[in-house]
């Protein structure tokens, strides 16, 4: 069986608890539905009017005892459901106390910014985490309401402007987990995807070190031209590259774009060819995206791609 994802592939202890609760309550629901379906089917077969029968059946107005029975039984079921709800929430959503967040998640139209306060790493759309550790995320938004959601890893949580939320977050095993924004946030809500890369602690530490490296600006060749264009062609008005004057946070931090697997929050896989396509006309791949078509010439595109590829 292929991986169906979401509820069918719980990959963290919290998600497993939520999956168990969902299956349990859905099972109760299916039993109740089955009782009603059987009763109605029986009625359809048994109490159908026979043609030509003009008599009226026995006129039964009700029975208070029966009404009490079928009031009390649902009350008991609701009590069980609520008890299960409370006990699951205790497991997956304990109080955060005064713990500082491990990662700050910031929603933007239509991409995600991840900031690691301890190390100072800033990246976009791909969140690296050490597997098997329960992390605390702080979830914020810079513009409209978004929702941070990894269907295999845990609950959804809204990113609300002017309101800070927290989320306990973990992945049991190393691997790549896919997620997306779950709250409608405008034109490109569909392409506001998330990749969580869960790694062993060693790999995670290594990744973090790489991210912190301030790359050297190329001094010669086509890449140097690209570096020049990046500063003059308005790229720097929105993007950051460490070690250069570009420090804006309207668009994703591009310092280590090389390390990321996709472009445009999941619309294209990251390769020099795709990066060139994206620079020629971002609106073609992500219509409505806040990155405008900069009307770059082919040689300018080549130079900027070379520059971004050279950053290491």
């Amino acid at each position, binding site marked *: 069986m292929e*991986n169906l994802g*979401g*509820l*069918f592939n719980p990959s963290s202890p919290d998600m497993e608890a*939520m*999956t168990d609760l*969902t299956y349990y*309550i859905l099972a109760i629901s299916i039993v109740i*539905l089955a009782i*009603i379906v059987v*009763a*109605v089917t029986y*009625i*359809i077969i048994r*109490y*159908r*009017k026979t043609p030509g*029968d003009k008599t*009226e*059946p*026995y006129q*039964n*107005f*009700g029975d208070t005892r029966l*009404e009490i029975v*079928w009031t009390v039984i*649902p009350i008991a079921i*609701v009590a069980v*459901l*609520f008890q299960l*709800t*409370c006990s*699951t*929430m205790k497991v*997956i959503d304990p109080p955060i106390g005064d713990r500082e967040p491990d990662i700050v998640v910031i929603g933007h*139209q239509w991409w995600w910014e991840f900031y690691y306060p301890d190390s100072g790493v800033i990246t976009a759309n791909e969140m690296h985490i050490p597997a098997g550790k329960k992390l605390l995320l702080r*979830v914020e938004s810079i*513009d*409209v*309401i978004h*929702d941070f*959601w990894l*269907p295999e890893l845990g*609950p*959804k*949580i*809204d990113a609300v*402007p*002017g*309101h800070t939320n*927290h989320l306990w977050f973990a992945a049991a095993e190393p691997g790549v987990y*896919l997620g*997306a924004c*779950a*709250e409608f946030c*405008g*034109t490109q809500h569909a*392409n506001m995807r998330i990749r969580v890369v869960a790694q062993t602690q060693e790999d995670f530490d290594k990744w973090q070190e790489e991210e912190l490296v301030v790359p050297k600006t190329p001094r010669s060749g086509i890449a140097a031209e690209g570096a020049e264009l990046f500063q003059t062609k308005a790229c720097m008005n929105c993007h950051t590259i460490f070690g250069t004057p570009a420090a804006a946070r309207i668009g994703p931090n591009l310092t280590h774009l090389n390390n990321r697997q996709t472009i445009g929050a*999941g619309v294209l896989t990251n390769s020099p060819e795709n990066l060139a396509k994206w620079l020629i006309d971002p609106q073609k791949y992500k*219509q409505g995206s806040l990155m405008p078509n900069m009307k770059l010439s082919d040689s300018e595109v080549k130079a900027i791609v070379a520059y971004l590829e050279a950053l290491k």
Partner: protein
Amino acid sequence: MSKIPLVPENTKPLPALGENQGMLSWVASVDHKQIGIMYLISTMVFFVIGGLEALVIRMQLAKPEFDFVSPEVYNQMFTMHGTTMIFFVVMPFLIGLGVYLVPLMIGARDMAFPRLNALSFWLVVFGGILLYYSFLTQSGPSEVGWFAYAPLSEKPFSLNKGPTYWALGLLATGISSVASGLNNIVTILTMRTKGMTMRRLPLFVWMILVTSFLLIFVIPIIASAFAMMLLDRLLDATFFTPAHGGSAILWQHFFWGFGHPEVYILVLPAFGIISEVIPVFSRKPIYGYEFVAGSTVAIGLLSMGVWAHHMFAVGLGNVANLYFSLASMLIAIPTGIKVLNWVATMWGGKIWFATPMLFATAFIIEFVLGGLTGVAIASVPIDWVATDTYFIVAHFHYVLFGGSLFAIFAGVYYWFPKFTGRMMSERLGKWHFWLTVIGFNMTFFIQHFLGLMGMPRRTYTYHDFPYWGSMNLLSTIGAFVLAISVLIFIWNIRRSLKHGEKAPDNPWNAWTLEWATSSPPAVHNFDLVPPVRGRRPLWDLEHPDNPDEPNAKIVL
């Protein structure tokens, strides 16, 4: 009845229906039956428009990474589909059905305020025109969803005129809804015929009464929010813009403070239809009348205290989440009582499965499914799995289509002979029924799984994950089956209006007062209102040896 008439009799005659005045006799009418029929016709028009929007949505999702329409158009389509179906189809249909039937069912001549009644109807039309006018503006209609969450619906994120027209149009229908709520309440409380006590009121009228109280309590919440939103958009106020000290979450409290009771506004009158149809076709009185009526009141009260279950992912904290979780689960209890009473009414009957009863029977199953998934997502952790996914889309379509719309179809087939004097075709009715059942379940059942697998709502495109393409395609095919079923339904109405078999006054051998007058009823409704000595006046007349209330006093 009290000595002081709460509603004074008209001293001047109301504008009379002119014979042969064509359209003018409709446009100028204050007769509740004509207004009711105009409600039903205009909702049919909006139903077709909303359905076409749904087909665009389903076409776009028929395969992964499809580009049938642009993301903007897709977002406009789901915004307009939801808004249209809720505010311009289900709500005015049920209100219109009430406008037509309530005076007849309680033996009255008209609504308490006939002119207000006409105003209510024309405001719905006006609201619909305002909403759809936005298609003619430069950037088209609103594309921020029927929920219009701030700050996305505010400047600077939505600079087009769509959301402004959207709010204005809905403000107009809001005024209309409050007016019809008041009109219904006064009519039902003061204009019942002799002997029609509250305990003998037909259940449809009970449900309309509770719905009307909900209307006057909750519509003002959203109307104020629309006004604030318009102030934000037009006069640079900042109620809902966090960047300037407003609150984005406040909008959600207003919206769902109205929005959840709204669900019951959309479904309680549907319960009323079912509570009329099932007894008549089972040939038995409703089982547990007091419990069906009482549970409606309970649902009405509870519905106003559960709104934040739409906001479990907003981060309100676990105390609030758990309260709203429990309160929401409690609604399952009165709702369950209703379902079991309907089943008990059928039990031991001699059931005639004409088209109205087919829809009513299917309603029970579809609605129970929608209700059970509703109880599941009242549990906070399950909501965190399901919210904003296709699971929710499936859930509320089972409630609003499998519930409200199935009941509406049952109601149309049931009362059509009374409205028009002609029967609808049973043969076409059965085609309509079966295609609706197949198309509906094909479209929406699979969406439960899509949602649990992780497909978010309101996305114009999706990656080709395992099975997503084929499951979405199945759903799209189902939507087209549904479209065919609607065409058959419309054809059935058209054909039956012209060529339908002539209907007798009481074709179903039913028991409530609307069946005691001619089909269609005369302008003055009744020549003589039959005596009411029980809940089923026409049963009592037909079975003097076995009346419902043998000891009832004759009220003169």
